[in-house]
């Protein structure tokens, strides 16, 4: 699939701040199943300085400084991404009960090492209640992949998608107890559950296509940036991505932006401003499939 993607994040400040520093993770990753054909990140107003880089997990970063008083600031990504099916083979994932042995044998601390994703992380503490829930929907004879899908489906069935119930800083346990929230909450809860039962799990930020193919229902979470889960299924297939908000395997409707342990590693815009007072944020996302058979777009 070929997509034209646009993401715009805008801030307005009540009192003007005199200096801003922002770290963006808005550029889609290049992966075996995804390529960024063209993409540009812009800030308005134009920044004083800019430095592009790649973080530990391989996510593209853009570090911007604005040395000026501002009452509004916005960042935009525009680009074209080609996406194919990430995984379509057999379930070769390890048996759920073999996983601890596979993890222990993994002698590496590189970005894809399951060791980073098995314990509590800044935004996902271990929670007994969530672990108990996860344990109740899996059994020891399942493959890791089957267990992850089971948890994804169970969470999807029990959660109400409700943007008013939580905000960006809601702890997973609170969303879990209310069984309400958005993709970020469900993703955090599922990560906590997987880790609780011994499956390494991480956070993926990205986009969903805004308009569904004809005759299909619109997917939840397409109006803003989306989030889903990746879990480590043993040395044979490695990482596999599941979308618990929609209870589906991640496929060609998803576009991956960043990998991390939880939201704190992948936040699209982390900012700091030296001022008092409140600010407002808005996100606009547009993901439009390109009709490659048409002669012009």
């Amino acid at each position, binding site marked *: 699939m070929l997509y034209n993607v646009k993401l715009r994040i805008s801030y307005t400040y009540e009192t003007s701040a005199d200096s801003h520093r922002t770290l963006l993770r808005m550029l889609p990753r290049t992966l075996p199943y995804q390529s960024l054909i063209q993409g540009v990140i812009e800030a308005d107003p134009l920044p004083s300085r800019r430095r592009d880089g790649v973080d530990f997990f391989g996510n593209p970063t853009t570090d911007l400084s604005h040395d000026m008083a501002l009452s509004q600031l916005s960042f935009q990504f525009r680009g074209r991404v080609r996406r194919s099916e990430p995984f379509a083979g057999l379930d070769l994932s390890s048996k759920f009960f073999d996983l601890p042995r596979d993890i222990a044998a993994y002698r590496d*601390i590189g970005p894809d*090492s399951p060791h980073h994703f098995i314990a509590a992380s800044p935004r996902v503490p271990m929670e007994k209640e969530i672990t108990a829930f996860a344990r109740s929907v899996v059994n020891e004879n399942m493959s890791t992949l089957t267990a992850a899908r089971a948890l994804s489906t169970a969470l999807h069935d029990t959660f109400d998608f409700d943007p008013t119930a939580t905000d960006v800083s809601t702890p997973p346990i609170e969303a879990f107890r209310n069984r309400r929230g958005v993709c970020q909450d469900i993703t955090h809860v599922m990560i906590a559950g997987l880790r609780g039962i011994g499956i390494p799990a991480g956070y993926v930020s990205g986009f969903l296509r805004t308009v569904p193919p004809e005759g299909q229902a619109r997917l939840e979470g397409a109006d803003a940036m989306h989030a889903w889960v990746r879990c480590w299924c043993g040395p044979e297939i490695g990482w596999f991505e599941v979308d618990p908000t929609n209870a589906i395997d991640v496929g060609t409707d998803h576009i991956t932006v960043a990998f991390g342990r939880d939201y704190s590693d992948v936040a699209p815009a982390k900012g700091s401003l030296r001022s008092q007072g409140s600010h407002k944020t808005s996100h606009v996302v547009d993901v439009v499939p390109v009709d490659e058979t048409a002669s012009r777009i």
Partner: protein
Amino acid sequence: MGQRETTMQDEDLARFLANYRPPAGVADELMQGEGRLRPVWAEFIRRLAVEPPQALAQRFAAGNQYLGDAGVFFRQHTATGSTESGWPLSHIPVLISQEEWAGVSAGLVERADLLEQVMADLYGPANLVRDGKLPAELVAQNPEWLHQMVGLKPKSGHFLHHLAFEIGRSPDGSWFVLGDRTQAPSGAGFALENRMATTRMFSDFHPSANVERLAGFFRGFRDALNGLRENRDGRVAILTPGLHTDTYFEHAYIARYLGFMLLEGAELRTDGDRMSVQTTHGPVPVDVLWRRLDSRSTDPLEFDDASAIGTPGLAAALRAGQMTMVNALGSGVLESRAFMAFMPQIARHLLGKPLSIPNIATWWCGQPKERAYVRDNLERMLIGPAQSTRLPFDIDASTTLGGNLRENADQAVRAWIDRDGATLVGQEAVTLSTTPAMIDGTLAARPMVVRVFAARTPNGWTIMPGGYARIGRTSDPTALGMQSGGSVADVWIVSDKPVAPDTLTGDLDDGTFSRRLPALLPARAADNLFWLGRYAERAETVVRLLRAYHLRQSEYGGDKLLISEALESYLESFGVDTGEPVPVALMQLFDAACGCAGMVRDRFSPDGWMALTDLSKTAHDMASQVTAGNDAARAMSDLLRKIAGFHGLVHENMFRFDGWRFLTLGAAIERSGQMARLLSVFGEKTGPVGGYDLAVEVGDSVMTHRRRYSVATNRNTVIDLLALDGDNPRSLLFQVDRIKQAEERLSRGQVNRPLGDAARKILALRTALAVARPSNLTAARLDEIHQELIEISNAVSQQYFG
């Protein structure tokens, strides 16, 4: 020397050591078995033994006096908050022979080099993990292993520059390491303060006792850090979490001692990728940061985004290779208890030999064999979190001493180990050596550990010849921490050979010296000094007004005078409730002044600080005792005398550096502003009866008025004396002159530039006052002047603190 004298000494010694009984089965610093003194202690302890108890008490008092005068404190945490407590010095130092220390030093240098190698590997190729020398999960799950820093090679070529080791002595007399402090070790400054105190206590003995000096260690590290700067324009700064940290005093002390800036994260900016600090003379590059805060608090963009004490962009500046961080971010990873379990095999792997000084025996319960060993030897184990960075004897809720378990409880612990093994370590419940401490007038044996400091210089690691010992309150080794009532002692490394005196400058006493350029003043420090001046002055105004009020109350009792009512409402504008003899609003002003002074402890004299805190304490103490009327008036007079003492210290003793000028500027702006207000309310013909006299009284000019004018107070004499008399230090003109002089000195070096905004406003006001006559200064004009002074204050803030 006769036989008789020796015998008497022996008798004295026996009496002195009557209660000194080291427990069986541990080493003792003083005694080497069968009641024989270790040679290194012999002379010192015999000296003390022959002294009458009062003489010894006097020595100890001299030490306490020094620490009190120097303002050494530490922050004591309690259930309800934290307070500053006196420094808990255990007066008897720990003596260790130079020969033995040389061995300890060599072992610690080897360990420091090893830690550097481990650090470089964990943030580089991670071969230790790949080769199975260190389990991957202990690194990846260590909260201090910062993935953000992987792949970053430090600009200086080294990750570690300043380390501390906690060492103890085994029953067999050998030393071992209890913990590595690699994050941002504190205490080197405290070691120095302890030394200052013990040199005073034993001033007759110390110079000839061949005690190794500490100055050389600090000089070496200072020069090493200065050598890491990009060029001579760059600065070295100590990065502190701020006033409310346990060890803030030490940060301020070290900064003052070594001549480094003391900065908080919010003062730093990234201009381009070079960090800079805003000073009163513009931004100045900072090339080396000696951080005293944890890595994760340093940059909210990359680490803990809730950190309010960090600097956004700091990690990026490091990545851009523009700055050296001491120690590199992420160095705290080496502090975890679990690492201790792997250091022996890492040493064999990387050094090809076992550690010269072993560390505390540690078993990670994530491995089956080790887990079984810990389960089977519970009674001599400390069991606690594997990733904890606390020292083994810091027993807390999450750490259990196996031997202390009640019957049957050990089954529960075994189950705990089986269930959560990967997150637990067992550490040998070590016994520590004992050392003499004076407890209730008698010498007793108490357990101790020594904190030793290492600093990297261009010639490799140096070890401080000394350090500080922590001494247990009781014989229980788990109560060593200061927070649990332990105390600290100086450590003397005693040589066989004479030790030459040494100073930080390293200068010989031959009369040569160099004069350093005045240090630049960070804008935040200037801001605090400015407001210290303003708050102290405002407090004085309120005290004077309150004294005037209570004098009138006591003279006229219940009959309310119009002037008293006017005073009540005037004081109300300061938030003062005249119903309170020592109003809360007044105490808040003293507290605010102390708050400002507390932020600039590195630039403010200890005497000035003592005077200020004493003022605040006196006011708080008075609040519960003083009654309205005469009593309150007397109390205010007492406070005024103390304020005068503070002014005296500031103006007679403080060096005329830029900081002093900001203090003066703040005080003069406040005093002139208050005078303009006072005159506008009480210097009017239409004002309350007695207003003129009140103004003259609050303006502290009663005598002068009597001498200078042959008449009773009238509007012209009052305005002349309190506004326009250039010889009266209370007058508007005098204070505006002071403002002008201070500001001119601050903006010096900008001779040919146009006047700054502040200077322009000051000059206009000064000129207007110089040519004014009393009749020009109407109440409306005085209000205008008050407004102009506010604008001057704002202009100063904008120009210098922005």
